[in-house]
């Protein structure tokens, strides 16, 4: 049933479209037919039989009204008409047009026979125009076209062949009729073809649009499905990392408790093995969770600028005991490098690489290098281990692949280390490379983007040696209501060679300044002194009125509004605790130069 309606649908659509066009054409033609009839009557009134003229005009009117009614109905009802109704309209339309043709042809007998040559020619002319116009109507079948014109054409030809009159046959007029008919048939067929073509294109476009809409819905559905799947994966991860690990943690607690109750050596040994097993289980579980986190996109990079050389040196130090315990030499050569990447993830990657190197190398050395290379730094981890055959090199980054370990050494996890390395490499775009051959060790290299800007030593980077070597001969007065601060600050300054005077309250300091000939080069004062005068007021009086050299405020009060007041004062401000570097920068700075110590 469905198949039939699917097939008949395009035909029905075509019929409906055709009917609409024919109806419109026929309605447009009606006024023209009316005008033609009036002209005919007017011009031939004195040349032909009156009765014939009126009969003819009356018949033409009846047919015109019929066609008008049919056209109207088609226009109004064809939209929701079923196949049967459409067929009915087609027949009514066909009957209307065929009737109109027949009445047109009847003009030869009703008008032309009783008229003169002029009248005959006029009737013939109008008959021909009518025939051509009807042939140009859009009709679905060639037979329709014949039925529509035959009434007119047949009567015209019969008339000019001399049927029903004394005239001899006029073949030339018959030939003209035939030629016009043939032209109209060809033309009408071509028009129908074009019409069908445009209808097909229109339907195809509609179908395409429908398809696009359907595709869009499918894609939207898939996206929604993917979103849900991702959400459920995230939920699983959250659940896994929290709930699934809890029994493991509880197990550890119970094992710890059991340790207090185990007395025999055998049992203790057994307990040790159980604890090891739990540890390995937890490690493997964590690696698996990490892998899923990477794959779920739950791990994101947080890049910033950091000292790559320090990071690498620190990591190598972590592995030194393990490597040296195996009798391996482990060395690090690092050029100072300010890199821009995610240090946590990069550190993880390097740890996995070095851990691998330490594990697989049985003798020789592991060398880690940081080198500048254009806009980037390369970090390489080189070992004198067994090496990796070229055909294995791509495979080692896959999950759960361990070379030279077919029996799966139990302590070695599940082979996720390099799989995690690969994922971090992709996340941070580190251009991971491996150079290796069987028997000649391996070299893993990553390339890290350099940070823009110059190499700036972060705060607190002065080495103890620098702090010891610093010397100053400045006279420094310090003011703080905390004796411990006075003591530790004073000790530091004296160690650098400064002449120090310590005050716990502002008034004695100002008195001393008024009466003593020697003025201090620096006054270092706390701001909150537990006195009527603040550190800032004391500094102002001392420097601006009493001729002290310079003053610096060392404050523990980090309330923004007060800090702002202090910064506006023009004195350098140090937020407690004052580091040796800040003090060195302060005392070492030339008068009037901008002090780095103003930063909080």
């Amino acid at each position, binding site marked *: 049933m469905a198949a039939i309606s699917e097939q008949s649908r395009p035909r029905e659509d075509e019929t409906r479209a055709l009917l609409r066009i024919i109806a419109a054409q026929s309605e447009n033609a009606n006024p023209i037919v009316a005008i033609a009839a009036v002209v005919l009557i007017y011009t031939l009134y004195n040349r032909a039989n009156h009765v014939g003229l009126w009969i003819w005009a009356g018949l033409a009117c009846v047919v015109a009204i019929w066609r008008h009614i049919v056209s109207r109905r088609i226009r109004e009802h064809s939209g929701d008409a079923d196949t049967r109704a459409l067929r009915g309209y087609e027949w009514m339309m066909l009957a209307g047009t065929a009737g109109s043709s027949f009445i047109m042809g009847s003009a030869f007998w009703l008008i032309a026979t009783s008229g003169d040559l002029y009248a005959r020619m006029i009737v013939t002319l109008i008959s021909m125009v009518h025939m051509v116009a009807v042939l140009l109507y859009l009709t679905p079948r060639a037979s329709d076209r014949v039925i529509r014109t035959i009434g007119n054409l047949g009567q015209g030809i019969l008339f000019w062949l001399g049927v029903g009159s004394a005239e001899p046959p006029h073949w030339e007029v018959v030939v003209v009729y035939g030629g016009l008919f043939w032209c109209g048939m060809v033309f009408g067929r071509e028009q129908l073809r074009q019409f069908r073509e445009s209808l097909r294109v229109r339907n195809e476009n509609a179908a395409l649009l429908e398809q696009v809409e359907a595709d869009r819905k499918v894609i939207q559905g898939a996206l929604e499905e993917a979103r849900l799947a991702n959400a459920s994966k995230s939920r699983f991860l959250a659940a896994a990392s929290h709930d699934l690990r809890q029994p493991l943690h509880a197990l550890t*607690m119970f094992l*710890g408790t059991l340790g207090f109750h185990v007395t025999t050596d055998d049992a203790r040994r057994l307990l040790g093995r159980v604890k090891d097993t739990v540890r390995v289980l937890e490690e493997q579980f964590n690696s698996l969770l990490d892998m899923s986190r990477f794959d779920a996109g739950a791990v994101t990079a947080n890049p910033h600028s950091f000292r790559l050389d320090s990071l690498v040196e620190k990591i190598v130090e972590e592995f030194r005991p393990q490597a040296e315990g195996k009798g391996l030499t482990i060395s690090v050569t690092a050029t100072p490098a300010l890199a821009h990447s995610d240090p946590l993830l990069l550190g993880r990657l390097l740890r996995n690489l070095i851990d691998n190197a330490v594990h697989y190398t049985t003798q020789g050395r592991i060398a880690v290098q940081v080198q500048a290379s254009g806009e980037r730094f390369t970090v390489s981890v080189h070992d004198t281990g067994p090496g990796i055959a070229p055909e294995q090199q791509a495979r080692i980054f896959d999950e759960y692949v361990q070379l030279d370990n077919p029996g799966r050494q139990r302590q070695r996890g599940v082979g996720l280390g390099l799989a995690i390395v690969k994922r971090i490499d992709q996340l941070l775009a580190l251009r991971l490379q491996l150079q290796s051959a069987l028997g000649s060790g391996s070299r893993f290299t990553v390339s890290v983007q350099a940070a823009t800007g110059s190499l700036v030593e972060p705060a607190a980077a002065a080495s103890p040696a620098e702090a010891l070597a610093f010397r100053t001969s400045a006279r420094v007065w310090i003011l703080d209501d905390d004796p411990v601060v006075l003591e*530790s600050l004073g000790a530091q300054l004296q160690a650098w060679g400064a002449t120090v005077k310590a005050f716990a309250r502002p008034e004695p300091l100002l008195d001393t300044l008024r009466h003593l000939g020697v003025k201090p080069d620096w006054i270092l004062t706390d701001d*909150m002194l*537990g006195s009527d005068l603040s550190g800032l007021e004391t500094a102002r009086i001392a420097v601006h009125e009493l001729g002290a050299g310079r003053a610096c405020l060392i404050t*523990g*009060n980090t309330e923004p509004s007060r800090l702002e007041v202090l910064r506006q004062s023009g004195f350098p401000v140090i937020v*407690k605790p004052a580091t040796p570097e800040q003090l060195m920068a302060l005392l070492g700075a030339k008068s009037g130069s901008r002090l780095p110590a103003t930063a909080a």
Partner: protein
Amino acid sequence: MNLLLIDDHALFREGLRALLGNISPDVMVFESASVEGAIDECNLTPFRMVLLDLGLSQSGGMATLEQFRAGVPATPVVVLSGERDAALIRNAIECGAVGYIPKSHTAEQMIAALRFVLSGGVYLPPEVLEAERAAAGQPVSTMERERFQLLSPRQQQVARLLLQGQANKAIARELELSEGTVKAHVSAIYQIIGARNRVEAVTLAARHGFIVM
């Protein structure tokens, strides 16, 4: 000594309670599965400290800690968590925790950590302490190690409450000092121990074994 254990996993609570019973028999362990229940419990019984699981399923993460601290600001909180991400640990201390024990510790590490915490110390996982030290770029000097001893008895009292996560106002009330004095003490403490903020101070206390509870 009363201790409150807040964790929504009964199995873990049971395990920890058994372990604590063996480490220190004089500890009375109370349990709660939710923050709300814990706050009610704290209003009935004074606790020396609270061991709080950060991963409680209803609240979750730092919100758990903040919710508990808002309800019971005066009880020191040691966080127990399955996570051991450095940023998370730092965050927990910023939110007022005075110690952090990863649940992923081995039995031996867990016993050591609990003993340390029960004796009033600040416990942080070794890798956090290592990282802080590496960031400072220097080995610990003897001078630094003695810094907590440089604190006056009054400053030590303030330092304990400060490290426990108490606000200046609460410290002032507790020690019957003015808030200004407490502020001055706090800045002096930071100056002496060489810390810039409470997180650094907690880390230093953990490293040097300063007793805070």
